[in-house]
Each structure stands twice: as C-alpha cells, then as structure tokens.
C-alpha cells in the first residue's frame, strides 16, 4: 500500500496555529464514531423497513419476481377509497372524544387524589392498575365484561328498563364499549402525569390561597392549572397518537364491527395488508397514515407550546 497524499489531520492543524485559539482542544471528527451505533441501529430497525414500505407503495406486486412500477397510483386510489375515508373520519372522531373525556377526567382524578399519608400509595396503585394490563388482555376483559349474557357490565346495563345493550349487533353500543374501554385503560396515564405535576407545587401556595379565601375552583385555576400546562401538552400528544393508532383493543372486542362501526384506520390497514395481502395499497396507506400522525402531532405540539409563551 502506498500513501498517495498526506491526510490532513485536524489535530495537527490546530496545533500548528496556537495563536489563533491558544486554549482550543485538538479537533477531529472522532465524535461521529460515537453516533455510528445509533445510525446502524436506526437504519436496520426503522429506515430499511420504512423504505420497503415505500418500495411497495409505488409497485403493483403479483409475485416477488413479477412487479410493475405504478407511480402514485396507489396513493390516488387509497385517498379516493370511501372505506378509507370513512375509517379516517371515524378514527379522528374517536381521538377527539378520547381527548375530550380523558384529559379533564384525568386532571379531575389527579386533583382529587390525596396529597399525603398512606392513602397516597393506595390511590396510586388503584389508579395505575389498568396501565399494567397488556392491551390484548384489556380487550379480552372488556369483550367478556360488556357482553349482555355472561358479562357483568353488559348484564348490569341491560337491567335498566328499556335498554337493550348488545355491542355485537348495535354499532352505537360497540362504539361506546370501545370508547369506555379506552377511557378506563388510559385515563390513569393522564391522571398520573397530572398528579406528578401537582405534587411538585409547594404547600405554601395552597396555604396562601386559603388565607386569601380563594375557592377550590379559583385555587385550581390560579395555582394548579398553570403548573399542569407542560404535562398536559405531553398527555394530549401521547393520547392523540395512541388513540389515533388504536388497534389491539377494538380488534379483540369487536373486530372492527358490527359492519364497519369500529373499523379504525389501523384495523382497516391490517385487513388490507395482512387479510387481502394488497401490499401496494397497504404501503401507500401506511405512509399516509404515518404522515397524518406526524403532522397532527406537530401541529398540536406547536400550538400548545406556543400558547404557553
């Protein structure tokens, strides 16, 4: 091997110019080596799979050896598909309802939770319990719980005169079941986040409000709510992304039915991709889905953090 030209070593260059930056440490690009493992990891776990999806989305695949480039054809057909549009609106509606219920309810639970004493641990355990249950188990629990014949919840509701609750036949009942399940499963997350923020408020603030004679509502609005802004931003983002991508629970409980009443975007996507094995449309669908979540999250984040200024 021969050295063709002297490699410029930044360390040497820096050392040769001592008067420009006398205290400067020798510079080189070795820090990039430290980033390399992450780059490799992300490439293998995220970038390559994503590019595979991109690859699918622009081809019509009959068999692994027989594929045709179709350009943006799948994107066009997916965005025009009434089934996809219906699922999109349904998912959007679901996320909106989830946020409208879980955020205020979670904050209310956090405010009502005890601030000190042994009841703190007890309350934390009770509130956190739903979070510890695997998602498909949550689905199974509710699938049975909400049944009119053998489920306690469904049976209890049917005892009310004039009510005929059956989530496998009635689309409103199915919607309510999935919504209540999500509220039951994820409100604790909002409550715990809010509780952590509320706990960080020093006791004198509450005493000062008490001395002023402020009402409980005024205390909440003037002292507690301003402290919650940061965690609520995170809670809203998390709950939006999660509910917008909800899959396991409705899949287990209703399978997207009855009809397509609880067929959310993810349920429909898995039907197209895994059920019908239409990889082209499924790829285009996935990318659009991914983009929507990104954009909505970005908008949420920008609006929420800017209003704090």
């Amino acid at each position: 091997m021969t050295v063709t030209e002297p490699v410029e070593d930044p360390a040497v260059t820096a050392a040769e110019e001592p008067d420009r930056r006398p205290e400067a440490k020798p510079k080189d690009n070795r820090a990039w080596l430290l980033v390399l493992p992450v780059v490799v990891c992300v490439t293998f776990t995220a970038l390559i799979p994503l590019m595979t999806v991109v690859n699918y989305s622009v081809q019509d695949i009959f068999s692994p050896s027989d594929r045709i480039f179709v350009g943006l054809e799948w994107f066009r057909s997916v965005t025009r598909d009434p089934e996809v549009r219906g699922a999109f609106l349904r998912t959007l509606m679901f996320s909106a309802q989830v946020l409208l219920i879980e955020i205020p309810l979670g904050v209310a639970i956090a405010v009502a939770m005890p601030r000190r004493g042994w009841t703190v641990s007890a309350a934390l355990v009770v509130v956190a319990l739903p979070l510890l249950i695997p998602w498909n188990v949550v689905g199974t629990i509710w699938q049975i719980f909400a049944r009119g014949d053998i489920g306690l919840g469904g049976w209890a509701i049917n005892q009310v005169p004039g009510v005929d609750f059956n989530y496998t036949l009635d689309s409103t009942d199915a919607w309510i079941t999935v919504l209540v399940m999500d509220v039951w499963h994820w409100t604790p997350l909002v409550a715990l986040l809010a509780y952590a923020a509320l706990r960080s408020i020093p006791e004198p603030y509450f005493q000062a409000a008490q001395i002023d004679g402020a009402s409980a509502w005024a205390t909440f609005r003037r002292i507690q709510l301003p402290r919650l802004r940061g965690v609520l931003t995170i809670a809203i983002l998390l709950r939006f992304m999660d509910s917008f991508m909800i899959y396991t629970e409705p899949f287990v409980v209703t399978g997207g039915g009855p009809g397509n009443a609880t067929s959310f975007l993810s349920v429909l996507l898995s039907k197209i991709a895994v059920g019908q094995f239409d990889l082209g449309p499924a790829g285009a669908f996935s990318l659009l889905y991914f983009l929507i979540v990104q954009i909505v999250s970005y908008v949420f984040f920008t609006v929420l953090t800017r209003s704090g200024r």
Partner: protein
Amino acid sequence: MALTLDGVRVRRRGEVWLDGIDLELPSGMTTLLGPMTAGKTTLMRVAAGLLPPDSGRVVVNGQDVTGVSVRKRSVAFVYQQFVNYPSLTVHENIASPLRLDRSFPQQHVDRRVREVAELMGIAELLERRPAELSGGQQQRTAIARALARPVDLLLLDEPLANLDFKLREQLRSDLKSMFRQSPGLVLYATSDPAEALAFAAPAVVLGEGRVLDTGEVAALYAHPPTLAVAAALSDPPLNLLPGTVREGRVEVLGASFPAPRAHASGRDVVLAVRPHHVSIDPAGDGALEFPAEVRLAEVTGSATFVHLLLPGGRHLVAQLDGPRAFTPGDRATAYVDPAHAFLFDESGGRLLAESAAEVDLHG
C-alpha cells in the same frame, strides 16, 4: 389587637413540634428568633389558623379562635419561598386578597394596589407576571400582597432568607418603617440574629419547640440567660470551651481566671465566647492564652475566620478584622478575654455569671 397562645402543643409523626407554648403578644412587631427546626413556622401556622394544635388555645382579642378556619380570620402570610399566583400579573396578584374580601370597598382596590406597590417599589412592574420578575421583585410582590389588605395578624416566615445580601439589607429597612405604620400585630420569624437585632423589636427566642426566653433582642444578646439563648443569638456560632471551678478560679484547658462569683469547687462549667472576641494578637491583661494550630482560614473581605485547633482536640474559631493571610499548620496563640465571655453551668446551661466584668452592649 392581642394574640395569646395558651399551652399550644403540636406533635406530628411521633415528633414534638411545639411543646407547650405560652405567649402573649401585644400589637406591633415581634421577632420570632430560633434556629431551623425550632418550631417557628409551626408556631406561625398555628397562630394563623392553618394548623390546628393538638392541645392548647389560640386567643385573639380575648376570643378563642383555636378551631376557626383561616378563611374566617384576618391574617396575611409571607413565606420564605416567593409565593405568587403564576398566571396573574403583579397588579392582579396584589389585588387578589382585596377582591376576595367582601368587606373591602371594591372601587378602592386599584388605588390600594398602586399605593402598596409604590410602598414596595414595584409600581413600574404592575403589568408583569411573576416569572418575569427577579427574586427580590417577586418577594416584594408577595409582601405587597400581604400588606394590601389591612389585617389583624401579619405573619412573615423568614421572608428575606432566599434573597441576596444587598436586597436583604434594603428590603429589611423598607419593612422596618412599614411595620411601624402597621395597625395590627406583626410576627416576623428569622433564624438570623443580626436580622432580629436590626429590627430592634421585642423578641421571642424559640428552641426545640419551646419558648426559651422573651425580651428586647439587644438585652438578650448582651445578657443571654441560658446557653441555648446565647447560641440562638450568635451567628457565627459560639465557641464553647469546657472548664471547672477550682478554689475560686475557673480553669479552662490549662488556663485560668478568677471566678466571678463564689461557686462550689469542682463544678463543671462551659465558657462561651463569640468568634469576634477571640484574638490571635496579644490582648490586654487577664486574657486567657491557648497555644493553637491554624487549620483553616476563610477570608470574607471585611473579616477573616481562622479555625484553630487547641490542645485536647478542641476547636476554636476566631473572627479577625480584615483580610489576613494564614497557612494551615501555622502556630498561633489564641487570646480569649473572660470579660467578653459567658459562663454557663455545664449541665443545665444556666448562666453562672455573665462575665468576669460587666458586658457592654456591643458585645
């Protein structure tokens, strides 16, 4: 306006926070002096009605208010932390107790807010929010909030402790003149003896949940009746040297001086001396001399604190004027004038004699 605490006891988690407090406070300002965990904050919270005592009574103007909620009392509280409503402007913060007080004429709120803000020197900041203020301005806002509404009982719990030195000095003199005009009772808690001395108000010295003594601060400083009071009134901390009375003389670590009064021979005593009365330059006649080794010297600018090691492993801190240079390991002689030292009983801490000579007020 008079506040009486009658046998107030507070116990929490197996610890005694207040151990039978009997106090009678007249209107005007009273300083509550004591080290951390002495029970100052607890006492104030009991007086305000924020904390119900386990036993004992709180009496205001002859009326028992022990069980009365703080909402129904005429109380204002300033905390060591700067407590303001974060989402309200300074103006709204100062106005909030007035707006919630139904007896206050609402059309005068704005005028009163401006008046108090002027007094506290924050008139230009009324439209800002607490987060946009410096620490000193935040605390001024909190104090203005407390002063806005005329109250029977104004409580201040170390309000200047979190401020830097210059602001503290300035705000303290502002407060001093303000309290003079205050019609009600002002209770001011501090752990800093210099602050208590600066206010020159009647003081209550607290220690471990008990009232150690009451009286004028300067008098307590000059003639502390017990070791605990002397310690509470000494910052930097007192130097304590063990001694014994023997044949009319007090022997301390090999040195001795004539006992101020006749005491039984063999009695153990403690000689307490404030650091600025320890010298390493030859002092006048009668000063006790101790051979010492310099361990550490801290220069603060106006003074140098020299930590000395005496024979027998005893430590002594000397406060010397101005910056002085020392090297750890230097040999020195420490001079302690018994005329400026206090002599306490070894067990009970009771004062045996103020000093050999009469103590002057400046210490």
